[in-house]
Every structure is written in C-alpha cells, then in structure tokens.
C-alpha cells in the first residue's frame, strides 16, 4: 500500500470553477504559470506567484494537505538542488567555511530561491493534473498538438501513450508491491542493510516486473485491436471540447498575472 501514497499525477474529483475549465485552457495557463516562475527574479515577485497559486487552490477546493503530498516523492531532489546551490555558490559574503567549501549569503539566497521555485513548479503542475481528468488532459494535449501533426509530430500517438501510462500506473504499482511481498516471503530483504545491499535486493525485482509489464502490454495491445483501434484516423470522441466564458476569463486573468510578473522585475524589492 505504501507505493500507493503517491499523489503526483493523480486526479482529485471535484466540480469547482477550475475543474470545469477546458483542459486546453488549463494546460496553457499551467504552462504560462511555470514560465512565470522562471521570469521571476526576486522574492517579492515570488510573493505574487504564491498568492496567485493560493487563490487558485482555494477556488479549486482541493485540500492543501492533498496537494502537498505530491512533494513527497521529489523532496529528495529538491533538497539535493538546494544543497548543491548552497555549497557551490562562491560569490557573496562568506559566512562559514567547511574545508574547501564556503557557505555564502548568496548561496543561502540561491538555495532558498531554487527550493521555492521547485516547490511552486510542483504545486503548479500538480494542480493541473489534480483538477483535470487524465483523459481530458490527454485529449487537450492531443488537440493542442494536432496542428503540429502536419509537420510530423505524432500527436494522437503521444496522447494515447499518456492515456495508457496513466491508466497502468496503479496497476504496475500493485504489481511491484505483489512481487516485493512474494520475494520478502522468500527471505529477500528490502528494508535492512546498506544502500548497496538494498540496491542488490532490487535486481531480482526487476525481472518479474519487466515480464509483467510486457505481459500487460501484450494483453492490452490485443484488447485494443479487438476493440477496433487503428490509430487516430477516422476516430471520433465522446467528449467534445469547447471553450466557454470561464475559459475566456481564465485567459484574461492569466494575461494580467503574467503582465504583473513581468512588471515586477522592474521593482525588485529584495
């Protein structure tokens, strides 16, 4: 059950104004938001990003506890980034010296900055997946990317791959759990020992996992064929996408937000 706690990429059912937006709107807005995080140069401007995100979260009615769980699997990555920034920034006033490594004010500033940026990146993108059904997300992507199909981008195939990946994440997690338990029952030890021993214990896990993944893929391909799947041509969709007033409003809000962020660069307070 432990592997199931991952919320990143999960949908949180709801009927908020955010949930009701067209998937394409949400994808574009999320992208704009992510870009804005890289435009920002100061903490004061970050305050704007945080307030904006907080408002969207409140409107979406998703419990903050649920969103923050999305950080769990990547907390290690965030901390690592922060440490690297902390240790390898040599400009600024030196505060402490650890052998060859110098901790500087600039290092602390950058570490905090990067950490905050990453957290907001995760929150921003998980808000997209939390408020958008996976299938709408992939449909939206397919629609958005379809103009690129003319230059050879396999938009439909990419979207289908995502749909399937989303569908089978829980299945593969269950499968992993099952194999681990079976091997634990046969004396394998995934919990104790050094990092090297733990890594070695994972090797026998990969074999059956790959075999399972291939079996599932084979079964699924067969089932899809049996259900008349033959690529994107001639395919219709049950859900028709249309932009509504809410979407127009969302784009307007997003434009104002982006403008504010860009303007904020002129007024970096700290």
């Amino acid at each position: 059950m432990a592997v199931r706690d991952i919320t990143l990429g999960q949908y949180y059912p709801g009927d908020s104004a955010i949930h009701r937006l067209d998937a394409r709107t949400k994808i574009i807005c999320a992208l704009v938001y992510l870009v804005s995080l890289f435009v920002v140069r100061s903490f004061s401007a970050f305050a704007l990003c945080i307030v904006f995100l907080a408002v969207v979260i409140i409107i979406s009615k998703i419990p903050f506890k649920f969103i923050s769980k999305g950080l769990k699997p990547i907390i290690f990555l965030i901390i690592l980034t922060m440490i690297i920034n902390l240790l390898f920034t040599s400009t600024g006033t030196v505060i402490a010296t650890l052998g060859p490594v110098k901790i500087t004010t600039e290092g602390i500033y950058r570490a905090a900055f990067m950490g905050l940026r990453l957290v907001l990146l995760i929150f921003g993108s998980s808000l997209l997946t939390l408020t958008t059904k996976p299938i709408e997300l992939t449909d939206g992507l397919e629609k958005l990317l379809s103009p690129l199909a003319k230059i050879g981008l396999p938009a439909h195939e990419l979207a289908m791959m995502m749909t399937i990946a989303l569908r089978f994440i829980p299945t593969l997690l269950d499968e992993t759990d099952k194999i681990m338990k079976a091997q634990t029952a046969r004396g394998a030890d995934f919990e104790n020992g050094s990092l090297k021993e733990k890594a070695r214990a994972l090797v026998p896990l990969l074999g059956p996992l790959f075999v399972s993944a291939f079996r599932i893929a084979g079964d699924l391909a067969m089932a899809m064929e049996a259900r008349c799947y033959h690529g994107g041509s001639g395919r219709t969709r049950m859900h028709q996408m249309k932009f509504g007033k809410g979407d127009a409003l969302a784009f307007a809000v997003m434009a104002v937000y982006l403008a504010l962020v860009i303007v904020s660069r002129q007024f970096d307070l700290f």
Partner: protein
Amino acid sequence: MQIKVENLSMIYSPGLPYETKALEDINFTVQQGEFLGIIGHTGSGKTTLVQCIAGLLAPTGGQVVAVAEDGTETVISQKGKEAFQVRRSVGIVFQYPEYQLFEETVMKDVCFGPKNQGLSEDEQKARAREALDLVGINADEKGEASPFDLSGGQKRRVAIAGVLAMQPSVLILDEPTAGLDPKGHDDILEMIRRIRTEKNMTIILVSHNMDDVAEYADRVLAMDRGKLMLLGTPREVFCEHEEELRSVGLDIPAGPAFLWMLKDRGLDLDDNHLSFDDTADEIIRALKK
C-alpha cells in the same frame, strides 16, 4: 508450530477520506498440521489476513504469535531479527505465483529462498531437489531448463517449490488453482494434501471454491467485510450456518446448495448434507418417500 491470531486489526490509510478497515479484531488459533480453509469475497480481508500471518504486513492493532513446540512464543507481526527468523517458517504462495519466476533456470529459482536463508550452495541444491520432488518435478530433467519454457501447470509447481524449499512449517496458499483446467486443479489440490501428510505441514488455503474447501479443509474460516464471520468444521459452517453465508452472498458447496434449491421449491428434505454421496442419498430418500 501453532499460530495464534490475537485481536488483529488492520486499517488502511487511517485518517484519510478513503480509510478502510481491512481487518477488525480477528481472533483464532491454527494448530500444527491443521488444514484451514479461508473463504470470503474479494475485499473481505482474506488476503490482508494471510499477509499478516506471513509477517508481510504489520497490523495496526493486535498481533500474530507463533508458538513453537517447546512453548516459546514469538510475535511474528513485528519488526526485528527474532521475528524475521520465525517468519521464515511461514511460507506463502501468492495467486498466479508463476508470474514471479525470474531466474534463468528452474534450479536457481527454487534456490532463491534457501540462498537468502544463508545456506551453503550444496544445502541450497539439496533443498531445491527435495522441494521439486515434492511438487512432482524431476530436478534432473527440468532443473536446468528455463522456467519460461515450462507449461503453465509446471511453472506453478516450480513457484510452489520455491516456497517449499524454505522448509516452512506453515504453508499459506492464496487461490493456488486459479486459472487451471479441471485436471490441473485436482492435481494441485492432491499435491497439497500429499505434502501436508508427508511433512505434517499446517496448510492455510484461501479459496473461492467451496467444494474444495469442504473436501480438503479440517476447519473453515469465513471472512466478511474485515470481520471473522464463521469458524468451524466444513459441516458446521456450510450446513448449520448456510443462511448466514447466503445472506452475505457467499456460495456453499454444490451438494447443500442443490438440496437448498430443492427445499426452496417445496420438496421436503433435510439439507444438512455435505458430500456428494450423502446429498444423492438424501434426494433419493425424499423422492421415494
């Protein structure tokens, strides 16, 4: 070794909106050498229960205790070296165990358990040979074959041998006959019965097939929505409590089910018969009356 299940509870995702009580205050004891059948719907907690007994899941309440021949008690359902040792005497065969095979040869796969137990290579092989022998696979013929080249039934036997090679005193099997044809089904059950007799092993069989449970088990444990609903001999459970089983939508063996069907249609007979012969005799008696 005796297994005592004491006040066992298991709550998944406590505190979250989708909190589920998989097990609620379960108490029972399994004697050494006993054949216990566990029945219940998907989601009734059967799998969670056996995984707690095998020490693969830590319960949120209560404990599972192993009582050795000399009376020493060890709590299986906790972390630590001692529990880890005792857990090895509880073997568990999961559903579709053949999907778990991973080594290049049958021999290597069966040796995986003994190897983890820290046995020497010779001992590992000796264990593997004995285990393969128990499941009716000739180690000389198939030992060096790839598990993937075997037939479905053979793969399953090899997977079971992989657990037997650890020489457990308790063997838990979760739906060991799922997906097999009628002959393969009977063969596996006969094999389990034989292993039990030869090794005086405790068998815990999780099954959906009421006829199998009625025929093979000494006692039947029925689970319903995380609770222990019934525990008794097949006769007690299937004949005296059939109404309760029906009320939660569980099957009963073909014989009593058919007698019940006749009774329901107005035929005057006694539906407290379990075996095929007794069922037939009762119908003949009722019809000739």
